[in-house]
């Protein structure tokens, strides 16, 4: 093995993953204590926002309007390496990158989610045609093209994986956007929703009300898709029902990003990472913190807003620990918007407190109905939080 690919000059925090949680954590460590060296490892050169990417499918937003680079983060004096972290050696306190490694004093792992391809028969082999579009980027644009190319009268099948998965209301917002597009552009088409869950996972009442405007939606609860045949254009549910499609959007079951699995940070379920609710330190390996969608055990949704909050809390904890101080007890909050057509949105807000070392929900509140004002607020939220993460 080669040596340290970037020999350190002092105390160093390495962050794996430059998404909503990781990029925030990297920035806030530098803001808290500029004497700490920060290296952020992120394979993608550009950040594409998952929030608002459903609106690319309906043509309401462009992917470019959701795409940012990491240039402004570098101005905080951190190193951003566009590499892939292939492993972690907790005892040696180093991260493997290519043929070398990066040593750390504290490691923050923000790996996002990985898909469990093996859970759906035929999916791994059909990845290029059967799209998830659940990590905003090229697949989002490809799925929009598939939708646009579909004949009027065609059937769009969207499958919802079993909870827990990234962005609980995301599939249902996507159903709204696809149904809105089809209602206008292909009025003889329909959307069939095959949901592995017993009911709509988030904002159920609000989505059901919003769907009144879309007679082209056919929702089937407790329909877990276990097989896809891309040649026959057909999916099969766990009851053996076969559903034909013209375009399918198969959102696969999910687990923590692969580096978390390889680094032995996941629990007995082999899916998610359990952490301390105040410091986000892994319960399995000291000195390694896990944030964002990869975590489990906190009463919070796997959302970008929560990941951003965890990034700030974790940064504060890591800096306190490196300076030999007690980490403060800080609780996250979550604001989550879903657009139900081209101009109206709904929202859910959750706030939390720390009670005897655990995150506990104080309150949840939903908007009463879809409104243009809420949609305008969501634009303000996006502008501010993107800047909070990358600015």
């Amino acid at each position: 093995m080669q040596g340290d690919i970037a020999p350190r000059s002092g105390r160093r925090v390495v962050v794996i993953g430059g998404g909503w949680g990781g990029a925030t954590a990297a920035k806030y460590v530098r803001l808290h204590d500029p004497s700490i060296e920060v290296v952020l490892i992120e394979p993608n050169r550009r950040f594409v926002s998952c929030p608002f990417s459903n609106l690319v499918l309906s043509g309401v937003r462009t992917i470019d309007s959701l795409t940012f680079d990491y240039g402004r983060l570098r101005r905080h004096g951190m190193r951003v390496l566009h590499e892939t972290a292939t492993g972690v050696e907790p005892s040696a306190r180093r991260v493997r990158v290519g043929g070398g490694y990066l040593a750390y004093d504290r490691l923050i792992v923000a790996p996002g989610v990985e898909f469990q391809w093996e859970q759906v028969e035929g999916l791994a082999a059909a990845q290029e045609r059967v799209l998830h579009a659940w990590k905003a980027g090229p697949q989002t644009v490809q799925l929009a093209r598939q939708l646009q190319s579909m004949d009027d009268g065609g059937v769009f099948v969207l499958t919802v994986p079993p909870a827990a998965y990234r962005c609980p209301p995301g599939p249902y917002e996507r159903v709204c956007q696809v149904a809105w597009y089809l209602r206008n552009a292909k009025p003889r088409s329909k959307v069939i929703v095959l949901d592995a869950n017993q009911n709509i996972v988030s904002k159920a009442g609000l989505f059901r009300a919003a769907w009144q405007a879309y007679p082209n939606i056919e929702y089937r609860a407790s329909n877990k898709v276990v097989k896809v045949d891309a040649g026959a254009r057909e999916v099969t549910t766990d009851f053996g029902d076969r559903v034909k499609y013209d375009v399918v959007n198969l959102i696969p079951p999910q687990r923590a990003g692969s580096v978390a699995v390889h680094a032995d940070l996941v629990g007995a379920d082999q899916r998610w990472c359990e952490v301390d609710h105040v410091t986000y330190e892994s319960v399995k390996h000291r000195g390694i913190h896990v944030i964002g969608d990869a975590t489990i055990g906190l009463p919070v949704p796997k959302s970008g807003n929560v990941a951003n909050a965890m990034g700030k809390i974790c940064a504060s904890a890591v800096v306190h620990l490196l300076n030999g101080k007690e980490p403060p007890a800080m609780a996250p909050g979550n604001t989550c918007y879903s657009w139900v057509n081209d101009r109206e949105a709904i929202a859910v807000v959750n706030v939390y407190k720390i009670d005897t070392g655990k995150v506990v929900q104080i309150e949840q509140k939903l908007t009463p109905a879809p409104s243009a004002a809420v949609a305008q607020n969501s634009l303000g939220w996006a502008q501010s939080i993107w800047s909070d993460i990358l600015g």
Partner: protein
Amino acid sequence: MIYVSLIVVLLLASRAEAGPLDAPGYGKAFTCSACHGFAGNSRAATVPILAGMPAAYLKKALQDYASGKRPSTEMEPYAKMAVHLGVDDVATYFAGQKREPATATALDGAAVARGKTAAAACAGCHGPDGRGDAAKGVPDLRGQPQGYLGNQMLLFKSGRRSPGDKALEEMKTLMKAIPEATLADLAAYFASRQ
């Protein structure tokens, strides 16, 4: 010269260390930045800047949101969180942050000019240029996002901003008397002030 530069660098470094994250109250106010921007300096069209606002104003706003007196789905839970953590600490944190005016957005010059004339009606409470009165908890309107100012004035006008709040009767009466187009001009004018 080198020494002078070094001193300047050291001074800047020590100032950077005592930044917004070191201020008391940061740990109770940090969730707000997702919408209200770093240290309360919103860069969003419809989200208000909190940095440098009078503590008394912020405290009343949080208490009113928390109790539902000032209705907002998004703000009610967060205000309850602030009340749970200590509303004075959160209000004092934002009041103590340096206001950083947004980079000039394209404001309509004619609307700003019309708004300047119309702003005479606001001067009694908010001062001649909208700077407010911290001691009385009257907010500083200068440099607030145009969208936010416009939305709030419309809420006052339609009776949906803090219904039943007697302390704001004068404001509601005034907003009802001013046509919507003039309210938009006022929003442009106060947004243009620094």
